């Protein structure tokens, strides 16, 4: 199954440029929306 509008974004972490882990639930804790820009090479 593919995630789509209406689904909950899963909880996961990804490494950031500063060596810190970025968490997908950080925005929820701050009660703000999240915009994910999934990069491709022609940016």
């Amino acid at each position, binding site marked *: 199954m593919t*995630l789509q509008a209406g689904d909950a974004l899963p909880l996961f*972490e990804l490494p950031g*440029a500063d060596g810190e882990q970025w968490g997908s639930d950080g925005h929820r804790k*701050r009660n703000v*929306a999240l*915009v*994910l*820009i999934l990069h491709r090479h022609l940016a």
Partner: protein
Amino acid sequence: MLAVSERHAEFAGAEIVVVTFTDPERLGAYVEHLGVQFPVVSDVDRELYRALGIERGGFRQVWSLGTLKKYAALLLAGQRLQRTNEDIRQLGADVIVSADGTIAKVFQPASPDARPGVDELLAAMPASGERRPDRESDRLSDPGRSAAMLRPLRRRGTR
């Protein structure tokens, strides 16, 4: 991406994150290259891409007329195109997530050059605390569905 960066303030405090599939060791150079002020993270195994159904494009998708025009514009602007060892066929996407963690909108362009404009992204932003799936049919009907989506993604503390 640069346009989003320049109009960052219009996103009303939303967290904006760039997800790449570049190696984590190269992220610093990426941040410098992209010139954005928001976090850049690495999904090197492309698990999030796969979970969202963001696939690798076919030859005609990747080398669409729009892509070629974009490259031509970059060259005319004096930029040098650099060879990359990374997968140029991987397509991108833009995802809007409500404050409660519900995916509100997935922009999945058909070719690399066809990203949504900032105005389109702003129009898809839910009001604070609002859940706004873009289609009625997209509403979550199976509560176990999202839990199942966790499996292909990297768990906390495993990396």
